[in-house]
């Protein structure tokens, strides 16, 4: 449980968003995240995010799949239950390649989907706070995290000067909790507790 204070602003245009992200970073504000309804190429770079490790995980899952397939088929067909298929050698590697390939793909695909869900904290009954529901529809939402040193009024006017609209101060829970999106399950009393804490 960690409720934090944010200043959020909406953007409607990539051409405004990109320079805005750059200016915000240069001004030294801490960008919590930028929420967009679709992937924007190059935004991760503009925000200075590091490359994802998802592909490394995918490679490891794939190798695991290859090893599983080759290992199991080798054991089954050369040690446990030798069968003569049309006079082929017991260790008939070419015939196993399709299965090896498919197990590689299966392991890599399933593993990467699960890892992706874990990294994004996506799962059934996992609920997170939204800054603005329109970030799933037609706007880009930038959220600046307020630290001890952030001057709130300055941050608001800064966001307005770089082209943000509907600038607000919001208290939001950054962790996930069990709940449903179709029901309003508030686990934390956000505003009051946070303000009391500050």
């Amino acid at each position: 449980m960690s409720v934090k204070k944010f200043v959020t602003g909406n953007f409607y245009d990539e051409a405004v968003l990109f320079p805005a992200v750059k200016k915000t970073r240069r001004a030294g504000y801490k960008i919590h995240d930028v929420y967009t309804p679709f992937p924007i190429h190059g935004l991760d770079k503009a925000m200075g995010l590091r490359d994802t490790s998802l592909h490394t995980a995918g490679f490891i899952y794939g190798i695991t799949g290859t090893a599983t397939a080759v290992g199991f088929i080798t054991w089954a067909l050369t040690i446990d239950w030798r069968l003569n298929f049309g006079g082929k050698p017991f260790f008939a590697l070419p015939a196993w390649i399709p299965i090896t390939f498919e197990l590689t793909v299966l392991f890599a695909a399933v593993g990467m989907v699960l890892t992706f869900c874990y990294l994004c904290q996506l799962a059934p009954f996992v609920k997170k706070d939204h800054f603005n529901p329109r970030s799933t529809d037609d706007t880009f939402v930038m959220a600046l995290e307020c630290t001890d040193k952030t001057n709130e009024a300055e941050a608001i006017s800064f966001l307005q000067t770089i082209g943000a609209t509907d600038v607000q101060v919001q208290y939001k829970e950054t962790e996930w909790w069990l709940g449903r999106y179709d029901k309003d399950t508030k686990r934390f009393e956000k505003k009051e507790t946070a303000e009391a804490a500050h």
Partner: protein
Amino acid sequence: MSIKENFVVSKRYNMISMALMALGILAIIGLYITTHSGKGTEDEKAVADVRFWASLLQNSVYFLLIVNASMFFICATTLAWGGWQMAFRRVPEAISAVVPVMGVISMAILLAIVFGDKHNIYHWTDAEHVEHDKILRFKKGFLSKNFFTGITLFTVAGWSFLGWKMRKLSRSLDNKPLASMAEAKKYIWNNTVWAALYIVVFALTIMSSVPWLWLMSIDAHWYSTMYSWYTFASTFVAGMSLIALFVVYLKNKGYLEYTNQEHVHDIGKFMFAFSVFWTYLWFSQFMLIWYANIPEETTYFKPRAYGPYSGLFWTMFIINFIAPLLILMRRSSKRNYTVLTFMAVLIIFGHWLDLYQMVFPGPMTDPKTEVTHVPMILWDFVIALGFVGLIMFVTGKALSKAPLLARNHPFVKESLIHHT
């Protein structure tokens, strides 16, 4: 902002390409002398003679197909309405300008082999032999001198003409910006139509008839429906590597300011993806034959995978599959010019070896004893260097003729802001 739009062929570049060409010509002469020394029996002489012609056949066809892959790349991206390649599009355009030159050379060599009755290469050209051969008699309509000549002419003429047309369309905008949206739409439509025509010719030639006639008919009894796709994949991945080499060269010389790592990364993706695609076709062809184990089909792989060519065969498999798979898989290696250049050279060499093992086992088999041997590959390699020099020379000339950025093309901006 001013950019270095006009490529100037440096003296050193010209000298290297000239030297390579001279080396190639010397090697051709040297190989001719050593194979036509006039010693031995008639059969031995015939084998020595086809060894010379097979070398020319393999080199000229390989380099013709990889320079032609550049035009395929342009037309495929045009049809897909791709914009990302615009920043360096003049590079594949310039490479494709080699097609008419290489086309004429290849055609001359192919027709010399067919009409010069080099039966050890194309034994379907031996009319008397065909009469006694049930399989070849059945294929007489397809494997005939007239059909071969017709398809070869159609191929070289079609590739050259449509490539010339695509280049002309691209250059027509250099000094004449498009005035309106309607005009731009018309221009794109025009491009689309000509690119589609090229793709149709491409499908009728390299993706079907041409590899069957030029290469597969060396082993005229054997056939594989995968063969043309396989050849296409082989030459396309090498063609992408060639584009990568020229792009990196121009970048190093300070040209192509708007081409950056993002574009090079995408070329690297093509090299990676089509290496895997090539392996897929290679395996599909190999596995079915290996599994069915029918004598008339396994004759193809007998000398290659299990005979005297096995060292070559598995080397080229490692170069063409294992190396690109493991090295080009990482994002950072596709964006690193040094690694990409190394891989491009390796892939071009690997697919040259691939074509080598496709062409040579047939002609190098003694018709009487059925014994196959591997010729001295160094000769062929030096001849290949000659063709590399020719490609360098003609491409450099073509690059210097037009600005390096197709700056008035409607899709250029998309390429300048390209992210991967």
